């Protein structure tokens, strides 16, 4: 990656700024968004840095046009992203479905905040977890990463771009106000240490009539605009050539399945987890900022001689059910921790409950990450 894009060094940096630096390092060329707390620092920083490398951040009239412009820029061949919070995602959902339907690489950063509705803008909750997967209409698969620190805001943004480009799909970075506004040490490696991926495109000069640019489980090359591919891009039901088909149900079936299978087929290489449950009887399952509390609680429990462990989901979508099952087969008790009323809990329970006891521990107050002391108490109760 271009050295001008990577500000190699050790910093005391805010999570949202680290996200913007991650986007720079990943090769982001186009960003569009609309001001919203607690995501603004990402946009502010991109607005300053992107023009220095020939890109730009554009402040649009709303979040609908922000994601629309991002999709347009992606079809123009640019690596593109948007950043917002829950209310913005709610507005973007129709066009996120469009991006999935026409297989558009892009990164969507959601710095989650107190919700529903306008909620509490400066408080982090994990309230939009299922929205990311099911918010837009119809069946689809999505990729979502959950960073837990400013360092990961940087690293996961790079991964998000790489996944988006590799699998031609929107990728969510599901952060929250705590992680986004957290300031910690961030180490940015040298440019040549950062792996970046750019989408495959068809060979120039390919006969447009023979070009299969869509609906391939192994990811079709993207017939980006301006290269003479004469791409017909419609999110209405279409075949692998992009040709619209609004009358044949078998075409719809293929459309729905191929889009999902493209992600599911590569689930193993997409899935990222942190396993620390060797020999553990009680396993804490969590993601994002909550994982930090889980790790601390397990540390304390182990000091007291309790066989406790953690499983941290870094990619929550596609849902890593196999990882949950593998863990649950060894554990006696699984405790799910989320900073919400239990959004991913039913998914985890469905995979784990056959093998172990599964319970959910919400924070005392939603919007407050679980106190490690409280988690420890729960572990002690269970292991009595």
């Amino acid at each position, binding site marked *: 990656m271009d050295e001008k894009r990577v500000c190699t060094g050790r*910093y005391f940096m805010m999570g949202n700024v680290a996200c913007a630096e991650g986007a720079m390092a990943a090769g982001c060329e186009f960003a569009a968004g609309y001001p919203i707390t607690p995501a603004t620092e990402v946009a502010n920083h991109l607005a*300053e840095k992107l023009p*220095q490398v020939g890109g730009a951040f554009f402040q*649009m*009239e709303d979040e609908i046009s922000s994601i629309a412009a991002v999709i347009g820029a992606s079809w123009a061949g640019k690596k593109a992203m948007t950043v917002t919070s829950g209310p913005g995602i709610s507005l973007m959902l129709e066009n996120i479905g469009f991006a999935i339907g026409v297989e558009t690489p892009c990164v969507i950063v959601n710095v989650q905040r107190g919700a529903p509705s306008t909620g509490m803008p400066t408080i982090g909750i994990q309230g939009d977890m299922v929205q990311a997967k099911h918010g837009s209409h119809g069946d689809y698969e999505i990729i979502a990463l959950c960073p837990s620190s400013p360092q990961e805001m940087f690293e996961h943004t790079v991964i998000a771009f790489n996944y988006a480009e590799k699998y031609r799909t929107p990728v969510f970075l599901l952060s929250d106000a705590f992680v986004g506004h957290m300031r910690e040490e961030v180490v940015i490696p040298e440019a040549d240490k950062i792996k970046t991926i750019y989408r495959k495109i068809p060979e120039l000069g390919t006969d447009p009539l023979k070009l299969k640019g869509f609906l391939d489980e192994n990811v079709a090359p993207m017939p980006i605009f301006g290269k003479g*591919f*004469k791409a017909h891009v419609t999110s209405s039901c279409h075949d692998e050539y992009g040709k619209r088909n609004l009358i044949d149900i078998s075409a719809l079936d293929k459309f729905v399945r191929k889009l999902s299978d493209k992600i599911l087929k590569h689930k193993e290489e997409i899935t990222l987890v942190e396993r620390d449950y060797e020999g553990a009887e009680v396993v804490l399952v969590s993601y994002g900022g909550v994982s930090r509390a889980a790790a601390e609680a397990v540390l304390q429990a182990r000091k007291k001689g309790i066989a406790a462990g953690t499983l941290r989901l870094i990619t929550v979508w596609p849902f890593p059910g196999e990882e949950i099952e593998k863990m649950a087969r060894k554990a006696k008790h699984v405790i799910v921790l989320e900073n919400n009323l239990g959004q991913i809990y039913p998914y985890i329970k469905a995979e784990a409950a056959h093998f172990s006891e599964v319970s959910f521990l919400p924070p005392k107050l939603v919007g407050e990450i679980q106190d490690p002391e409280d988690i420890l108490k729960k572990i002690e109760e269970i292991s009595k």
Partner: protein
Amino acid sequence: MSELVHPYHRFIRPTVTHSSFCPGCGDGTIAQSILRAIDGLDMDMDDFVFVSGIGCAAWIPSPLFNADVLHTTHGRPIAFAFGIKMGLTEKKVMVVSGDGDLVAIGGNHLIQNARRNIEMVVICSNNGIYGMTGGQAAPTTPMGVKTTTTPYGTFENVFEDISGLVIAAGASFVARWTTGHPRQLTASIKKAIQKKGFAFIEVISQCPVQFGRKMGVGNAVQMLEDYKNRSISIQEAKKLSKEELKGRIVVGELVDLDKPEMVEEVTRMRKKAMGGAEAAVDTGRS
């Protein structure tokens, strides 16, 4: 005898065998005017990216035109086109869609991008009705008219002057014609394509099936005759009072001016950003 081929057949996507327009639809006239303009300028379809929204007129470029075409969600084509233009500044970006798409559901994107004066051509086929969904009232449907969603007659004021809205928002080129003026329309599209700025063309277009037949204003020919009779050039219109212009369609090139264009301004901004001293890394502390 050699096979007769339409001179603009080369602009049509080879896989297309028919159009989806109803008999008598004005969208065919608009399609041909666009292709005549492109041909007249000696341009190639690869010089363009076409963007459309949802509705009958959106099916003009998608799938008819043999070019890069993005068929987007309802109301949003201009917003998608913004991203495409910023990514492919050397290409001509043309949005073709209807009044419901561009002015009702997508009105703010029209206003804001006219204000930005970003170089693109927006062609709005204004048929005064939602045709594709079966004849529902649009903001452009005259007051009192019975439609499928207003069985007792529309009870909202009509959106009379879409072009006026776009002029007020700051577009550098705005023209209005009817499908009864195909030659003038073609000439204006040519100018719009060459314009450094936001170029908007409103085309009053007949929908004989959902509008003409149901509202008793007749078939396509009668509707075109009505457009011709009611049309008045902007030059003539300037001499008349508001009262005298009631029911008339003011046609012509309403605005053609030079002002800062957004793509050029972005280039200027980038130069400023690159020329400045190496910015210190902002760690987010303030």
